[in-house]
């Protein structure tokens, strides 16, 4: 026990969430002029978060299915709201991702000159919101962080973004709010029926079918009395909330503009971590609470996933702005996660070989979440560097033959592109492979169609390499500086991590496997 025992009684999760907030407050109170101090301080707090997560990682009991480092206090009894924190494998993974991506995003924003302390403070607030979302286990508590993370993101896009930033920020905010309000309404209905906001309790109710019957009993007579209709409506509300966030086609139209107009560091956060909030929500909330309803609409859901994968890949192919290419590519990669999740929901009666497939798929989903977070943020980081060097240009056809003048840059970016492609040996492969392996037997036609996505992804990524790195050197760029040492310092660790996970995925799977098995167990029937 020892350290682990101490850790379990130490409010590490509160400290984790509070640290970036404290940093943000400090930064806001700092006098405006001192930019270096602001950047340094922000980075320090970001790295502090990484330290806490490392501590947690080391002390995490990978054999237990319980929520670890728990903190549970009554908050508003009449509303069943509790201050309830805890992590399992999934939460730990997400928290790790946040802790890694944030400092990198901050480093990528080192060149921002305007209102630096406010920018960094907003970044820290965003990180805090993310930590909170991934560790909260009571809806009231969780929803606060879910919503609050929108505000810094909105301002980051609005105040430091590109020419179309106002519209992009507004669209982003409103789209997400629509989903959130739908989700809120559904959860309030759930509360009215069950008198609890606790995710764990609700998950148990969802598994046993109690949730459906409670909803039906509470709202008897409101909607047409076809037995499944009311819970399905409630499910739709929660589904909408997460579908907008992931995003799932056709709720994705806010994303390309938001990613394109946001400043680099913000886009890294958006794609690296914020998009994972949606998938996390599917795993933590939607699937445990509404397995019956998901099974009812499984086929349409699979269609959504397939559409997401294929259409986004095709759209990426058609883009000319590099940032938009990667934006659509993000949607594509997250589509795989959803494919895996929907496939896993399929009813298989809890028999052995099926359980293994499901476990494989879910492991793949979690891995894909982490890997894509890492890879996509680095890719955007690279695009940011390119933009800085070219004076704002980031079109697909603006460059050519960069390999000749900036070989290191092209080399490292190439590695990341291949990771995104899913080349074996790099991290992207493991997740995608597992997902496809698991889903193929569970949802064959959907998986087969998704392969098209893989192909198209390969096409546009290779096209990108060809247009930007290879080919005749565009005379304009003959003086393009290569990656500088500080910049290498930013990308090299991430690249190393890509190799590490690609070759040794056990590092991650070791921690998350038990949680995954537990999730699969719960979907037994």
């Amino acid at each position: 026990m020892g350290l682990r025992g101490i850790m379990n009684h130490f409010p590490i999760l509160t400290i984790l969430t509070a640290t970036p907030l404290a940093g943000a407050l400090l930064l806001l109170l700092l006098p405006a002029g001192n930019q270096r101090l602001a950047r340094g301080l922000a980075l320090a707090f970001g790295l502090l978060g990484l330290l806490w997560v490392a501590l947690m990682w080391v002390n995490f009991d990978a054999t237990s299915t319980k929520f670890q480092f728990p903190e549970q206090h009554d908050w508003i009894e009449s509303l069943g709201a509790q201050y309830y924190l805890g992590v399992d494998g999934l939460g730990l993974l997400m928290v790790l991702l946040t802790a890694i991506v944030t400092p990198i995003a901050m480093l990528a924003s080192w060149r921002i000159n305007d209102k630096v302390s406010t920018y960094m403070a907003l970044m820290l607030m965003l990180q805090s919101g993310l930590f909170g979302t991934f560790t909260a286990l009571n809806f009231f508590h969780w929803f606060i962080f879910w919503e609050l993370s929108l505000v810094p993101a909105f301002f980051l896009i609005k105040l430091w973004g590109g020419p179309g930033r106002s519209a992009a920020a507004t669209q982003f905010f409103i789209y997400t709010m629509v989903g959130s309000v739908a989700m809120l309404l559904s959860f309030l209905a759930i509360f009215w029926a069950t008198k609890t906001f606790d995710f764990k309790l609700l998950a148990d109710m969802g598994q046993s079918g109690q949730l459906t019957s409670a909803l039906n009993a509470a709202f008897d007579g409101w909607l047409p009395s076809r037995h499944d209709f009311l819970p399905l409506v409630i499910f739709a509300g929660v589904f909408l909330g997460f579908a907008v966030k992931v995003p799932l086609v056709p709720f994705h139209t806010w994303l390309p503009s938001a990613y394109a107009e946001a400043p680099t560091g913000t886009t890294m956060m958006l794609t690296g971590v914020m998009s994972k909030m949606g998938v996390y929500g599917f795993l933590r909330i939607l699937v445990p609470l509404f397995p019956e309803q998901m099974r009812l609409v499984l086929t349409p859901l699979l269609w959504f996933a397939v559409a997401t994968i294929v259409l986004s890949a095709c759209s990426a192919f058609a883009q000319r702005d590099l940032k938009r290419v990667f934006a659509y590519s993000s949607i594509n990669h997250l589509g795989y996660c959803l494919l895996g999740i929907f496939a896993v929901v399929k009813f298989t009666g809890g028999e052995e070989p099926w359980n293994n497939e499901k476990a494989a798929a879910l492991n793949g989903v979690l891995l894909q979440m982490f890997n894509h977070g890492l890879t996509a943020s680095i890719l955007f980081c690279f695009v940011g560097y390119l933009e800085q060097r070219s004076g704002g240009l980031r079109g697909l056809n603006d460059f050519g033959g960069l390999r000749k003048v900036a070989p290191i840059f092209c080399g490292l970016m190439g590695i990341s592109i291949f990771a995104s492609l899913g080349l074996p040996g790099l991290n992207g492969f493991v997740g995608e492979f597992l997902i496809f392996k698991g889903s193929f037997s569970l949802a064959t036609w959907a998986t087969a169609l998704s392969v098209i996505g893989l192909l198209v992804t390969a096409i546009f990524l290779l096209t990108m390499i060809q247009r930007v790195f290879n080919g005749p050197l565009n005379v304009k760029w003959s003086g393009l500086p290569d990656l500088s040492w500080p910049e290498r310092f930013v990308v090299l660790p991430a690249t190393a991590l890509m190799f590490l996970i690609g070759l040794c995925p056990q590092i991650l799977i070791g921690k998350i496997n038990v949680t995954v098995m537990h999730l699969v167990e719960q979907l037994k029937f």
Partner: protein
Amino acid sequence: MLAWTVYISFIGVVALMLLPASQARRARGVALLAALFGLAVGVVGVVTRATGMQTVVRKPWIPDLGISFYLGADGISLTLVLLTGLAAVVGILFSWNIETRAKEFFAFYLALIGGVYGVFLSFDLFLLFVFYELAIIPKYFLIAIWGSTNREYGAMKLALYSFVGSAMVLVGIISAYVVAGGKTMNLLELAQFPFPIAFQHWAFPLVFIGFAILAGIWPFHTWAPTGHVAAPTAASMLLAGVVMKLGAYGALRVAMTLFPQGLVFWRNEIALLAVIGIVYGAMVALVQKDFKFVIGYSSVSHMGFVLLGLVTINSIGLNGAVLQMFSHGIIAGLLFAVVGRMVYDRTHTRDLTVLEGMNLSKALPFAAGTFAVAAFASMGLPGFSGFAAELQVLIGAWSAFPTFAVLAGFGILVGVAYTLRVLQKSFFGEPVPDAEHAPHPLPPISIPERIGAVILLAATVVVGLFPNLLLTMIDDGFKTHLFDAVLRNGGAS
């Protein structure tokens, strides 16, 4: 002791009237002292409260008619007294720069505050009505003399609408008094009286709507935007923040307790009006060109939540309604303070297209930050008081009128839209590189304004994170005998 909130306000009025005209600057100090004293009494009252209802003062007044001077407090009263205290103090802070006829301004201001305190503490129907009516006249003068756009029209419209509302209430009160035997005006005793059902069927909507007019119920809400826009900042803060709550409070304290069966009979129609108010108010706010009009209509929309919560008749919904009264009081105060005092007093324009080009976030960063926070609080973002309140109202509404709950949710969305729009246009617009209108530097935000803003911001955050501070009080208030019949008839939760 709580009665001193009322007494000190009126003593303050007299003191101000006797102040010689040369000492105009002293006037604001006197007013602030009186308001602070009222707030202190309110806080002490909250901290030292007993459970249930406590009697503060009870003396026979006009025994021949059964009228007594009966002041009392339960959790609901205490919450609203606290709100009034905060709003009063902050309002004076935001009026620190009034130069013309300052003495009279603060005299009318304190008179209004005194009347409001009186309504929240009265448990005798006649006394409640006296304070309620009494508050109309200071409002008229505050707007007519120190207001801005269309002030005389706005003031008269507000006064007449309020008066018509209270006329309706008076008819109801007199009828109830006579039907109950004409012996007592004590609210607690009258609430016990079994009024005939047929009587309740017409008396309830009369009294409820009469009060709700002041709360901005659709379609009798049109006085609110005009009046709020015309009013000077402190008056708008009070009007939207506290006086609209008078109406809702009256509807709760009088109409609902006296006529519980009438309430059950009419609740669906009233819920419909409330929801229309929520959605309509938000949609109209979305298209306004004048900054203050947006906030004015947003008040109508938020008060719709209060009214919706009131007619859910279950304890969660009712608690939410009272919490929303408090929360919106604070938030509306913040919004009007920024619009009126921080922006309009400096830029002399409220046209959003003009403001858009002024790049106010650079010129007035404190105001921008305050308004951003206030805007998010107004949207109902969690972490602020509005979320907890709207959450409860929606839960309550789910049980009573599920369809209306969904519509209210839609209203929240439109709320997000207009708030975001006005936030963008007012403070975060694109600066217009226009040589002829080179903006001369705007005076910085003064200390009293900062203090006032911080007080309100702190209030909304604290209540947002720890709503129990108020909810225990409010819940307690609904558990008194007075609300027995109401909750029974509605199917208590």
